[in-house]
């Protein structure tokens, strides 16, 4: 007796098609098109007055750097920001989607949206896609319950923590935070710890790089600072390999004029609106 497939539920036809395409491409010697990923280091921590989020700025296309200075810290609402790791498009569009939802909610209720609400919408969407939307996010912000920080994984699990790191450089950044994080730090100390954490990711992880972006979120609002620290600055070339005029001695000089005759002329007018 054949079992009939139930109607309804989420449709994963495209995922199956993609898998078949990938295997058939591989058989013929072609490589599957790899999505642009943010091989990333993102981190966040809660300090005395709010939340600080940090991220590197490298986007990779397979093994090439596609963007040396991209923005991984996305605005979800004036007091909630999200950092995204994984497939760049997924991370960006997930953030934009809940940002739209946050704004609608604010307009409907007249209040700033709760961080827990944005996290829940995010995790429910990611769960619905069963990990096919391949992005991990750190959501941090301040709402009426105070500063909060959540990490959300691609399959739809989330954790509320005082400090989090995600992305391929997470292990390196976590090492710094595990060593130096303290609850209720002052802004300067907290900034230094977070920058050093992201820096550790940039230096120790091949697919993280660029500079460090941070976003400080407090009760009153957010301050997104791009490029607060550059891990490796391109040096200035001190030598010049150009030869000075006169290095090569000119023995003789002769000039030949090339005559140009107009052979054919045609004019074509384009339509002017």
């Amino acid at each position, binding site marked *: 007796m054949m079992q009939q*497939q*139930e109607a*309804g*539920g*989420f*449709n*994963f036809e495209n*995922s*199956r098609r*993609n*898998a078949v395409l*990938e295997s058939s491409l591989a058989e013929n010697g072609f490589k*599957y098109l*790899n999505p642009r*990923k943010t*091989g990333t280091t993102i981190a966040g921590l809660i300090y005395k007055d709010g939340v600080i989020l940090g991220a590197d700025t490298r986007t990779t296309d*397979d*093994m090439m750097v596609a963007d040396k200075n991209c923005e991984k810290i996305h605005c979800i609402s004036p007091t909630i920001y999200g950092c995204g790791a994984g497939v760049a498009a997924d991370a960006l569009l997930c953030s934009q989607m809940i940002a739209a939802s946050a704004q609608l909610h604010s307009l409907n209720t007249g209040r700033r949206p709760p961080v827990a609400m944005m996290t*829940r*919408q995010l*995790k*429910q*969407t*990611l*769960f*619905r896609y*069963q*990990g*096919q939307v*391949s992005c991990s996010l750190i959501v941090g912000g301040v709402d009426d319950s105070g500063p909060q920080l959540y*990490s959300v*994984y691609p*399959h*739809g*699990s*989330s*954790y509320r*923590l005082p400090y989090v790191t995600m992305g*391929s450089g*997470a*292990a390196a950044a976590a090492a710094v935070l595990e060593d130096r994080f303290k609850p209720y730090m002052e802004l300067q100390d907290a900034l230094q710890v977070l920058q050093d954490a992201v820096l550790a990711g940039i230096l120790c992880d*091949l*697919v993280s790089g660029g500079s460090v972006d941070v976003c400080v979120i407090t009760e009153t609002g957010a301050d997104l600072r791009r490029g607060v620290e550059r891990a490796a600055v391109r040096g200035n070339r001190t030598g010049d390999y150009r030869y000075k005029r006169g290095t090569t001695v000119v023995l003789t000089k002769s000039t030949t004029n090339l005559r140009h005759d107009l052979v054919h002329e045609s004019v074509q007018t384009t339509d002017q609106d």
Partner: protein
Amino acid sequence: MAATMMMQSRGQNFNEISAQNALVPDWIGTEVSTGTTIMAVEYDGGVVIGADSRTTTGAYIANRVTDKLTPIHDRIYCCRSGSAADTQAIADVVSYQLGFHSIELDERPLVETAAHLFKASCYRYREELTAGILVAGWDRRKGGQVYCVPIGGMLVRQPVAIGGSGSTYIYGFMDSNYKPSMTKEQCLELTAAALTLAMERDGSSGGVVRLASISEDGVERRVILGNALPKVSTH
């Protein structure tokens, strides 16, 4: 509600694509799992539940202070093991359903109702889910109760139940040390000792021990940090 829309079929693991890239660590693509030890014990007047606090993605510990004891209602908790995303989603769904049901009833819901709601979700979507759950709580009708809903969606009430990857190491300990009619304090000690032993042997369990006792008077939660764990093993 988005949480109630569960998908049809999972298919193969599409995260193999990113794992082929040698420079990206393979735990990036692995699903987050609560490879766990959880335990729940009934006593006269309530229940004691306990869990470790480790969540892993492959060989990396994603969260070392996880709270796997999730409140479903005022006097009903669940202990989660298996896929973190699956169990969080199921717990959210059941909390919603139970909260709604409780408002309709205008009284506290039964633990058996919560357990059946878990079973309904876990059994219906058994092909797609990886979730082993212990439902424990107190209600007026039957007092303290522990229900086990393992992978596959079975439902059975037990006076003491263990679950998760670390539970295999403590079946002997539990069988020999559990006695019916223990007091709350004895249950707490037993749970802490059992979890400690499991955490010592199971690589996927560790961190701190989270305990909770649920009775008519309410829920008492406590945490036992790593350096304060009971000294149970003799070598």
